C-alpha cells in the first residue's frame, strides 16, 4: 500500500436526481477544490438497486458547474418590452436589490389580496422535471407554503409529455402513479413504446440488462425502433396511436380463445369481476346495506360482496332483485330483472376485437398478435407461487408496459385499462413477476404506497376523487388549469395542479372557452428548472404568452427561452454546489425498487461559482424580507424540507423567530432523518451525512407488491368494470351542463364502464382538419418523438460533453425517416428539409434509418432552442413547435399526446 489510488484521494458523496428515474448516489473526485470527475459510489453498491452507479447525465454535472455560459450574478431586465425579438437587456444587480424587489412584489400581493378578480391565485410557480426540481430547491417549498394559494398549473409538458393516463388510472386501480414490470422476476414483457432503456435511468437499464441475460422475452411494439426496441427480443412496428386495438385483441384472445386458462381465483377474489351489473350500468345492490351484490354459487342467491364463506359466480346472467344507485340521487329498484356479472359484461364487450380486426387497424399481422397473446399466457404460469419475505404469493412473470404517447391523450385510458386488464386476467397485478406500481403522488401518504391502501364502501381501493356532487363540486376553478373542476381523477394532492390539464392554463390565456372566467395573468411567476417556451406545444404561442406575464422571476442557470422574458434572474447554486437532504429508497419512479430506504445528502463538492447562492439561503432571505420568517420556520419544523423536525420520538425543531443559516437548517433535518429511520435512537447530523453521503435502513421486498396488504385488508381492484368512473362522468356532465358548458362533452364520453374502442387516428385527423381547415391527406406522415437517454429531463442542453456523446446515437441528428421511403421521395440522408404541420413549420436535417415505419417520422428530444447558449447552435428541430394545443385532442384526464401530422419538403442538399 504505497501509492494513492488513481481514482483520487478526495471523493465527495452526493446524489443525482436530474431525472425522475433517480435518485442515484455518486462520488465526485475533487482535486485542490476543483471537481474533476464523477464516479460511481461503490460504497453504496450493496444498498442501492443500481450498484452505486449513475448514468451519463450525471457526468454532465462538472461542466455544468464550470460552464462559461452560466449566469453568475442576479440580473434585472431593463428593457420593459418582452418578446422573442426583444433584447431583455439584463444588467447585473446585487442580491439585496433582487430579493427586495421580489419581496416588495410579494408583500404588495399579500396586502392587496392573494386571489385576483377571476378567483385565481396571483402568485404562480412552475417547476420542471417531473417533480425532480424539488430535490434541488432546498427549502423553497417551505417559503412557497407561506404564500399559498399558488397556481402551479402552468405546465411545461406535464399532462402532454408524461405518462398521464397511467398516473391517474394507475393510482386509481393499483396505487401506481408509475407502472413497471417486476423486472427481476419477469419472463415476458409486452412493451408498447415504453422506452425503458432511454428513460428508465440506471435502475431501469440495469434491471432489464439482468433480465435479458436471464433470457426474458420483451416484445417492443412501437412505430420506430427505439433504443429499447433495439434491446428487445422482437420489434413490432405498429401504426402510431393504434395500440389500444392491439391490446384489445390480446384481451380478446385470452377471453374468447383461452378463458379456461385465466386466473379465475384472482378474478373472483381480488377484482370486481363477480359484481352484478344492473340494466342502467350500475351495480345491483343490496337494498339494506347498499352494498354491491354478487351471485353466490353455494347458496344460489345474491349476497353482498363481502359476505363470508361464499363462492361468487364469475360468469353468467341471473334473474335477481335489488337496487341500483346511479349518479347524484338517481336510484332504481329492480325486481327479478336479468343481470350479468361484470366479467360477463367484459366477455361480451371484447368479443368484436379479434386479432384479424386489430391487424387491419394496427398494420400488424394477426398471427403476430395472436402469438403474442399466447406467449403472454404461456409465460404467466397461472397457479404458481413464490415466497417473498416469508409469505407465499402468486408468481406471474408477465407484464405489459406503456410508453409516452401510448399512455397519454385519447386512447390513454383504453391502453391503461387494457394493460391492467391483461394483468388482472392472469392474476399478474401487484404480484411477484407481474405488473406493479412504484409510487403514489395523488394518494397519501406519498412515502409508502402500501399505507395508502384503504377499503372503499364497495370493497375496492378507496380513491380521493375530486367531488362531482352538487354540494361539493368546485364550480369555479381555483387555478387556471381548472384541474379540480374538470378532472375528478386528478385528486387534490400537492401534485394535482401540475397534473393538469396544464395546457388549459396556457390555452385560456389566449381565449377562454364559453361560460368560463377569462384567465388572468399571474402577477408574480416563479420559474425553476423548466423551460415551457421550448418544452410545451405550440411553442410560439407559449412564448408570446409568457411575454405578457407582468413579473417573472426565473432561477437561472444560463439564459434560456423562458427566462428571456424574465424580470429578475436569480442564479442558484447548481447540483454540485448546493446543500440538501432528500428521502431515498423504498419504491420510487420508473424502476427504482430498493431493498433500503432512508436519506441522502447533496452537498457542495466545490466552491460555488461567481455570486451564486444556495437555494435554502435564497428561501430564508425571501422569507425574512417578506416578513414570513416564522411561518417559514414553522413549515420547516412541520417537514416542508422533507423531514418533520419534531415528532413524539424526537425534537430538532428550529426556533421559529430566528433566521437560521443553511447548515443549521440541514443539520436539523439530518438529525431528524436519522431519528426517523431509527425510531428516535440515533441522531447523526450534517457532518455524518457529509462524510458518508447517506443513511439507510431496510425496506422489505414484500412492500414492492400491494398483494399482501390487499389480501390482509380484503380489498379488491376495481376492474374490469368502471362503475365509479361512470357515475363520476355523469355527475360531472350534469354539473357542467348546469353551468351551460358543453365544450367538455367529448371528454365526458370517455367516462365509460368498459371503454369503447375508437378510431384514434381518425380522431386526430378530424381534429386537425376541423381546427385548421386543411385536407389531412396533404400531411401524409405521422410525426412522433422519442426519449433521448442523454438529455431527457437533464436541463443539460448547454453542456458540451452531453452533446458530444449523444451524437454517438444516430437518431439525434434531425428528422428520422425510413430509408426506403426517403429514396422513393428522392431524399437523401443529410438533406435539409422543411417539416410542416397544420400549425407551423420548422427545419432540420434528414436522418434516414431502416428502423422506422414508412408512414412515420420521428424527432428525438426537445431542442429548437433560440436563446440557450450552445444549444441554440444545434440546428436540430423539435416537434413541439408543430403540435397544436387543442381541446379536441385533450382527453378526459386533461392530457394530450405527442403526435402530429406533417409533410416534408427538401430545401437543401447534403452538405
Amino acid at each position, binding site marked *: 500500500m504505497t501509492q494513492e489510488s488513481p481514482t483520487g484521494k478526495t471523493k465527495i458523496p452526493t446524489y443525482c436526481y436530474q431525472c425522475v428515474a433517480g435518485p442515484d448516489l455518486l462520488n465526485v473526485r475533487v482535486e485542490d477544490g476543483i471537481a474533476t470527475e464523477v464516479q460511481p459510489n461503490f460504497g453504496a453498491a450493496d444498498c442501492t438497486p443500481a450498484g452505486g452507479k449513475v448514468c451519463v447525465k450525471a457526468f454532465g454535472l462538472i461542466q455544468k458547474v464550470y460552464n462559461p455560459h452560466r449566469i453568475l450574478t442576479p440580473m434585472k431586465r431593463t428593457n420593459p418590452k418582452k418578446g422573442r425579438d426583444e433584447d431583455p437587456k439584463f444588467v447585473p444587480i446585487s442580491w439585496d436589490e433582487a430579493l427586495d424587489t421580489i419581496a416588495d412584489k410579494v408583500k404588495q400581493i399579500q396586502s392587496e389580496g392573494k386571489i385576483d378578480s377571476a378567483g385565481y391565485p396571483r402568485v404562480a410557480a412552475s417547476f420542471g422535471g417531473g417533480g425532480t426540481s424539488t430535490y434541488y430547491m432546498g427549502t423553497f417549498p417551505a417559503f412557497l407554503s407561506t404564500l399559498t394559494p399558488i397556481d402551479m398549473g402552468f405546465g411545461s409538458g406535464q399532462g402532454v409529455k408524461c405518462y398521464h393516463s397511467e398516473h391517474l388510472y394507475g393510482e386509481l386501480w393499483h396505487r401506481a402513479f408509475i407502472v413497471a414490470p417486476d423486472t427481476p422476476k419477469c419472463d415476458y414483457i409486452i412493451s408498447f413504446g415504453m422506452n425503458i432503456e432511454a428513460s428508465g435511468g440506471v435502475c431501469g437499464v440495469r434491471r432489464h440488462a439482468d433480465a435479458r441475460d436471464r433470457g*426474458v*422475452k420483451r416484445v417492443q411494439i412501437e412505430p420506430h425502433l427505439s433504443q429499447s426496441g433495439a434491446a428487445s427480443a422482437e420489434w413490432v412496428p405498429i401504426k402510431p396511436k393504434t395500440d389500444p386495438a392491439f391490446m384489445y385483441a390480446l384481451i380478446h384472445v385470452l377471453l374468447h380463445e383461452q378463458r379456461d386458462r385465466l386466473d379465475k381465483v384472482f378474478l373472483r377474489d381480488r377484482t370486481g369481476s363477480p359484481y352484478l351489473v344492473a340494466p342502467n350500468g350500475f351495480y345491483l345492490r343490496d337494498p339494506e346495506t347498499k352494498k354491491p351484490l354478487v351471485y353466490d354459487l353455494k347458496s344460489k342467491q345474491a349476497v353482498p360482496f363481502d359476505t363470508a364463506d361464499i363462492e361468487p359466480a364469475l360468469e353468467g346472467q341471473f334473474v335477481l332483485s335489488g337496487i341500483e344507485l346511479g349518479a347524484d340521487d338517481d336510484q332504481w329498484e329492480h325486481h327479478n330483472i336479468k343481470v350479468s356479472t361484470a366479467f360477463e359484461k367484459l366477455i361480451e364487450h371484447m368479443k368484436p376485437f379479434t386479432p384479424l380486426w386489430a391487424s387491419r387497424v394496427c398494420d400488424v399481422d394477426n398471427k403476430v398478435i395472436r402469438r403474442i397473446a399466447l406467449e403472454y399466457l404461456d409465460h404467466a404460469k397461472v397457479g404458481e407461487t413464490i415466497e417473498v419475505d416469508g409469505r407465499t404469493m402468486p408468481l406471474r412473470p408477465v407484464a405489459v408496459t406503456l410508453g409516452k404517447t401510448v399512455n397519454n391523450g385519447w386512447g390513454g385510458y383504453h391502453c391503461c385499462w387494457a394493460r391492467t386488464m391483461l394483468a388482472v386476467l392472469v392474476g399478474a397485478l401487484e404480484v411477484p413477476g407481474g405488473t406493479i406500481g412504484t409510487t403514489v403522488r395523488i394518494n397519501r401518504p406519498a412515502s409508502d404506497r402500501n399505507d395508502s391502501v384503504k377499503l372503499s364502501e364497495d370493497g375496492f381501493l378507496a380513491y380521493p376523487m375530486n367531488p362531482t356532487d352538487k354540494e361539493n363540486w368546485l364550480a369555479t376553478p381555483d387555478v387556471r388549469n381548472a384541474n379540480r373542476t374538470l378532472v375528478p381523477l386528478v385528486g387534490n394532492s400537492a401534485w394535482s395542479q401540475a397534473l393538469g390539464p396544464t395546457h388549459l392554463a396556457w390555452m385560456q390565456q389566449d381565449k377562454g372557452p364559453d361560460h368560463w372566467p377569462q384567465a388572468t395573468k399571474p402577477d408574480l411567476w416563479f420559474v425553476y428548472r423548466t423551460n415551457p417556451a421550448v418544452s410545451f406545444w405550440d411553442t410560439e404561442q407559449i412564448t408570446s404568452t409568457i411575454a405578457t406575464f407582468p413579473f417573472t422571476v426565473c432561477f437561472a442557470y444560463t439564459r434560456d427561452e423562458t427566462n428571456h422574458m424574465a424580470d429578475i434572474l436569480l442564479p442558484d447554486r447548481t447540483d454540485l454546489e448546493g446543500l440538501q437532504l432528500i428521502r431515498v429508497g423504498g419504491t420510487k419512479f420508473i424502476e427504482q425498487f430498493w431493498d433500503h430506504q432512508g436519506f441522502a445528502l447533496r452537498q457542495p463538492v466545490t466552491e460555488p461559482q461567481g455570486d451564486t447562492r444556495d437555494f435554502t439561503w435564497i428561501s430564508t432571505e425571501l422569507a425574512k424580507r417578506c416578513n414570513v420568517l416564522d411561518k417559514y420556520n414553522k413549515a420547516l419544523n412541520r417537514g416542508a424540507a422533507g423531514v418533520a423536525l419534531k415528532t413524539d420520538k424526537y425534537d430538532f425543531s428550529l426556533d421559529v423567530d430566528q433566521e437560521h443559516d443553511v447548515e443549521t437548517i440541514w443539520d436539523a433535518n439530518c438529525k431528524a432523518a436519522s431519528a426517523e429511520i431509527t425510531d428516535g435512537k440515533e441522531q447523526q447530523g450534517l457532518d455524518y451525512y457529509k462524510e458518508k453521503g447517506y443513511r439507510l435502513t431496510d425496506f422489505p421486498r414484500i412492500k414492492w407488491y400491494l398483494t399482501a396488504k390487499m389480501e390482509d385488508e380484503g380489498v379488491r381492484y376495481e376492474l374490469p368494470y368502471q362503475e365509479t368512473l361512470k357515475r363520476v362522468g355523469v355527475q360531472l356532465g350534469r354539473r357542467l351542463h348546469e353551468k351551460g358548458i358543453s365544450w367538455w362533452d367529448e371528454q365526458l364520453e370517455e367516462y365509460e364502464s368498459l371503454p369503447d374502442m375508437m378510431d384514434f387516428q381518425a380522431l386526430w385527423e378530424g381534429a386537425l382538419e376541423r381546427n385548421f381547415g386543411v385536407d389531412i391527406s396533404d400531411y401524409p406522415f405521422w410525426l412522433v418523438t422519442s426519449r433521448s437517454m442523454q438529455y431527457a429531463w437533464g436541463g443539460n442542453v448547454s453542456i458540451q460533453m452531453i452533446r458530444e456523446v449523444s451524437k454517438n446515437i444516430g437518431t439525434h441528428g434531425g428528422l428520422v425517416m425510413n430509408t426506403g421511403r426517403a429514396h422513393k421521395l428522392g431524399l437523401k440522408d443529410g438533406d435539409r428539409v422543411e417539416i410542416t404541420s397544420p400549425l407551423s413549420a420548422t427545419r432540420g436535417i434528414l436522418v434516414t434509418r431502416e428502423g422506422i415505419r414508412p408512414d412515420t417520422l420521428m424527432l428525438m428530444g426537445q431542442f429548437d432552442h433560440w436563446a440557450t447558449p450552445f444549444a441554440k447552435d444545434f440546428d436540430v428541430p423539435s416537434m413541439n413547435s408543430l403540435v397544436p394545443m387543442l381541446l379536441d385532442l385533450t382527453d378526459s384526464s386533461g392530457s394530450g399526446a405527442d403526435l402530429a401530422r406533417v409533410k416534408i419538403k427538401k430545401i437543401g442538399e447534403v452538405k
Partner: protein
Amino acid sequence: MLGPTLQKRWDWRAAGNFICGGTGTGLIIMAATLSAMGLVTTVYALLASAFVAAGLGLVWLEIGRPLRSMNVFRNPRTSWMTREGMVALLLIPMGLLTFFVESNSLLILTALPAAFFLFAQARILHMAKGIPAWRTHAINPMILTTGLTEGMGALLILTGLITGNIEAFFAGYGWIVALSLVFLRGVAWLNYRYSLSNNAPEETLKVLERANIVIVLLGFVTPIVLLFMGKQYAAYQLPLAATAGLFMTFTGWFLKYQIIIYAAYYQGFAITHTPARGAGKPGPGLKPGWRLPQ
C-alpha cells in the same frame, strides 16, 4: 461514423515525403542505372538528395513534437519509419558526395541506400493496417515502380543538362528502361486496383476509379507514345523525352497524392453478429461502407 472515414492526419506534407522520397530515390537509382549505359549522371545525385531531404523536411513539419524528432531512430527492429530515417542518414550524404566527387562508382553505391529508402517508403504504407488502400501487398510494387518511374521522369526532364545524354539515352537501352518502367508501373497500378477490388471501402474504390483514367492516359499511354516518338524523331528527342519525363513524374505524384490523401479511408467498424436480446435470436452482422462482406 460507422463506415470508413477519410484519414485527415497525414496531409500534403506527408504526401510530399512520399512524392519527394520516391522521386529522389528513383532519380538516384535511375542515374546509377543509366550511368552504366554511358550517360553522365552524377550531377543528378544533388537533386535526388535534395528531394529526399525535402520530403523528410516536410514530415518534420507535420509531426507533433519536432524537437523530439531524433526519437524516430529508436525502433529499427520493427518500424519502417525508423529504417527510412536511418537509411536517409546514409543516403543524403552519399548523394551529396557523389555530386561533388562526380564518381560513378559512388553513384552506384548510393543507389543501394536509395533503393532501401524507396522500399522502406513502400513498407511504411504497407504496414499501416488501419487503411485498406495502403495495407495491401500490391502497394509495394506500386510505390517501387512509381518511384523509379518518377526518378526516370525527373532525369528525362533534366536530361538536357548534360550534353550527349539524350543521344545516349535513345541510342542505348535507356529508353527501353524508361518504357519498361512506365509499363511496369501500369501493371503495378492494375495489380494494385485489382488487389483492392473486393477488399477496400467503397469510397476508396470510387477515388481510385476516378483517378484511373488520368493515370492510364497520362501516366501510361502518353509517356509510351512520347518515348516512341523520341526514338523516331531524333531532332525532337530532347523535348519529347522531357515531356515524357514530365508525364511520368507528375502522374506518379498524382497517383501517390490520390492514394495518400483521397483514397485513404480507414477500415471502419464492423460486427459479425447482432446479439440475441434476451430470449430473442441473434442476427447477421454488418460491415458498413464496404461493397462486399469480408
